[in-house]
């Protein structure tokens, strides 16, 4: 019998390298099983999920701090570099905060908490694979795991037409984008004959079909652009964000976007680098840097300008998230044009840190939006925030803080994040990069208008209708405390985190 059991018994496996992902996946399965046996116990499933997340985080940190780390495993499909580590930390944080935020919603809507938690955990596993995958297969799978979970999460409020519509639009456009992404992957594979990103980078010089590389990269830009919501591939964002349940919207803006950036960075910055003396790589590199620069400019501008005219807070935050994707792209481009390896790694760490600050701030904001929206996400217009400033000072001041952090005011996390992502682009010093940063800055000023608007509405207007302050559940209070501390911590003493993000001295390329 033609078996290959010998190989099977000893496959190319390195468990510690995927331990964080594994633990989380197992937690997901446990939650699912528990929920099917004893349905409707959201506290228990939530607790199990949190424990799983914490265990996963512990595994991650042990991997992070291990003295002689295994750099890659599974035949180079999984890597342990600073990019993966820092982004994974962001995902875990996002997932944990989302679970806490969702408590209100889960209770109000009578959603099946167990299933919701299962999906959230699996989505997180997907995001983690997107960051850790050094192979297009893994990245694609991670992305799809994430996307499919998120489609469902967006439509979980099944009786609400807005939620249905959100899920459907997200599904159709998300799969559409996946199609482009996949085509890009196919062409890149065709050009180089490998799906491993490290090998891909090495083979650019002697690729069999260099022309395909260019087309493939263009398709990949479209696909990833969709996922991270950059203009002109952002059309789905406002509708989906508005219609999805508020905690899910917060999650989508913080988690999947960061995950998209993780893969996007890996594929482009590490996969299509500028190799000395290789003409094909120079052309490819130039093209994608220019394309992303233009995209960054468009993204910021459209996001900010469109956000100004919104009357719905969730929609405003959706456009704001588009704008933030633009700012993060500035750091991305900075990583692309970095002249040294350390500069590139710093820029990647900057984007990771930016996503971290954005996630913390944004989730904090969405915690409050969830609370204010009440049942069925009914109250999400600006008018619903009229004059609540001094009726619910804790909520209002926290929300103002988050808005100011999103705006990027000093002493908040957003400021350090912005400085970090603008830096690498300025370091490059070319006119294009400086223009990019200047436009980013002007956009920041534009964004002041709509971030302030929420503050204006809350504090400067009078409330005409009755206002009953929503009861603040413990979990949500915990989220607020965590995010507020986070906003200040990252803004004032974020040094440790930044260093941790950039200091894992593993360089995939140079191995």
């Amino acid at each position, binding site marked *: 019998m033609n078996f290959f059991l010998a190989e099977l018994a000893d496959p190319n496996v390195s468990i510690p390298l995927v331990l964080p992902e594994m633990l989380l996946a197992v937690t997901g399965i446990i939650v699912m099983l528990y929920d099917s046996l004893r349905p409707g116990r959201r506290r228990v499933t939530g607790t199990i999920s949190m424990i799983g997340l914490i265990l996963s985080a512990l595994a991650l940190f042990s991997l992070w701090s291990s003295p002689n780390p295994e750099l890659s495993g599974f035949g180079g499909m999984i890597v342990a570099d600073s990019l993966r580590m820092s982004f994974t930390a962001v995902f875990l944080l996002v997932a944990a905060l989302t679970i806490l935020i969702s408590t209100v919603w889960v209770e109000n809507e009578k959603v099946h908490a167990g299933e919701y938690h299962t999906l959230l955990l699996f989505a997180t596993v997907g995001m983690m694979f997107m960051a850790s995958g050094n192979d297009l297969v893994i990245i694609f799978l991670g992305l799809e*795991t994430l996307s499919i979970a998120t489609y469902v999460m967006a439509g979980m409020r099944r009786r609400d037409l807005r939620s249905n519509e959100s899920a459907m639009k997200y599904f159709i456009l998300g799969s559409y984008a996946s199609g482009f992404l996949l085509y890009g992957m196919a062409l890149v594979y065709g050009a180089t004959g490998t799906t491993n990103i490290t090998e891909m980078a090495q083979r650019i010089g002697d690729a069999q079909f260099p022309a395909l590389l260019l087309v493939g990269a263009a398709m990949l830009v479209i696909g990833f652009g969709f996922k991270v919501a950059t203009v002109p591939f952002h059309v789905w964002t406002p509708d989906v964000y508005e219609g999805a349940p508020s905690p899910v919207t917060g999650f989508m803006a913080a988690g999947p976007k960061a995950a998209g950036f993780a893969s996007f960075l890996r594929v482009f910055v590490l996969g299509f680098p500028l190799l000395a003396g290789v003409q094909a790589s120079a052309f490819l590199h130039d093209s994608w840097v220019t394309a992303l620069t233009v995209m960054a400019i468009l993204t910021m501008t459209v996001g900010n300008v469109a956000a100004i005219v919104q009357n719905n807070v969730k929609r405003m935050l959706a456009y704001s998230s588009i704008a933030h994707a633009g700012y993060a792209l500035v750091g991305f481009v900075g990583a692309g044009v970095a002249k040294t390896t350390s500069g590139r790694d710093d820029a990647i760490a900057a984007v990771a840190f930016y996503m971290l600050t954005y996630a913390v701030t944004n989730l904090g904001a969405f915690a409050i939006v969830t609370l204010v929206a009440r049942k069925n996400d009914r109250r999400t217009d600006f008018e619903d925030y009229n004059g609540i400033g001094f009726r619910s000072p804790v909520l209002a001041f926290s929300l103002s803080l988050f808005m100011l952090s999103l705006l990027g005011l000093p002493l908040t996390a957003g400021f350090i994040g912005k400085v970090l992502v603008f830096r690498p682009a300025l370091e490059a010093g070319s006119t294009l990069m400086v223009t990019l940063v200047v436009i980013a800055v002007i956009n920041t000023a534009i964004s002041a208008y709509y971030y302030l608007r929420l503050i204006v509405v809350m504090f400067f207007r009078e409330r005409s209708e009755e206002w009953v302050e929503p009861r603040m559940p413990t979990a949500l209070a915990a989220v607020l405390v965590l995010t507020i501390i986070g906003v200040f911590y990252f803004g004032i003493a974020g040094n440790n985190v930044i260093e941790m993000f950039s200091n894992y001295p593993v360089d995939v390329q140079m191995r």
Partner: protein
Amino acid sequence: MVSVLFFILAGLAIACAVSCVYHKNPLYSAVSLIGVFISLACIYLTLAAPFIAIVQILVYAGAIMVLVVFVIMLLNLDEDKPLTRLRYLFPIGGVLGLVLLAQTLFIFYAVTKTPHTSSEQGNVVGQSMSIGRAMYTEYLLPVEIVGILLLMAIVGAMIMSRRMGEPNLEAVEGSREGGD
């Protein structure tokens, strides 16, 4: 011989694809799409990939499209209404199509202009043994992730299609005038 076969199948695939897009009746589209899938499966055979060819039929034609046809029947869909809104999509679609076709031409041109010889190995990698070996050794991790993905999809599909009560009427009335 293979070449002739390829061009016949390719023609069939393209014709079916066009018909899939052209037909307003979703079921016609579905049937055309099945045609595409089957033609592609045959083309995979010409590419020495029997395993993929069969899985193509099994998964796409046998599972996914059955599901689609099933849903079409369940919802008893009518023909598409003529376009009333979003007319600007026509030029967008046209431009997109032209760009993609140009790109296809470019790919074709680039590949045929580049001298290349196919690997001898190409004729055996498609065997099920070779794919099976890859799946459980080199590509064990992706296959495991596929497992997670499918598990999650089951949960997701279950959530979405579970029985439920009336839609939330407040949202309907609040934002929509008139019924269907």
